[in-house]
């Protein structure tokens, strides 16, 4: 597609449930990033995929968070046993890689609310 697509746009879940958030990057973009944005805060880096390289998971806040990228395209961010502090907007971005930020295109995010 023309942009980065994220689904669902909104998700309300009960504390303790697992959730999966999906990101469809721009076709041909080899790099994919997940960020978390809490209310009134900046963007917190979570994980970065580049081609076939091992992902950079250094931003994942706990072992309840994991992400996969299948076939070098679609990515799924999974949060297990959700907690109220996981409530945030989860943003995905993709790029051609190489650190040229002007090539980063962000999706509109998934707003996760844990009740």
């Amino acid at each position, binding site marked *: 597609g023309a942009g980065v697509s994220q689904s669902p746009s909104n998700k309300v879940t009960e504390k303790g449930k697992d959730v999966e958030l999906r990101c469809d990057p721009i076709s041909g973009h080899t790099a994919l990033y997940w960020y978390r944005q809490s209310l009134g805060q900046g*963007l917190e*880096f979570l994980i970065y995929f580049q081609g076939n390289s091992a992902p*950079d998971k250094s931003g994942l806040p706990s072992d309840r968070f994991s992400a996969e990228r299948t076939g070098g395209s679609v990515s799924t961010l999974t949060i297990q046993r959700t907690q109220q502090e996981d409530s945030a907007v989860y*943003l995905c971005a993709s790029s051609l890689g190489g650190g040229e930020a002007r090539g980063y295109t962000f999706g509109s995010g998934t707003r996760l609310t844990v009740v």
Partner: protein
Amino acid sequence: GESVGLHLPTLSVQEGDNSIINCAYSNSASDYFIWYKQESGKGPQFIIDIRSNMDKRQGQRVTVLLNKTVKHLSLQIAATQPGDSAVYFCAVNNTDKLIFGTGTRLQVFP
């Protein structure tokens, strides 16, 4: 590690005035800096970037200034318009991932 901060959480300006949004970073080895604009309900959108071998770069109505001596970055918006109302983030590139500041909300009054 890198940390990025902003001096003001909210900036209010009158339409037609110039706006200046500031940002400080901590890692003197940082070499690539970006400003993003985020409107409500949308993801951040690239505005302008600058590399450490420059101290000024201009775009359409926007200018980014980099002072490596004090590790300070600023975004200047000329003739601010209502459509400029948004949250502005500076970001620093760190091994192919971006480290973002907390953002400044720009409010434009008629």
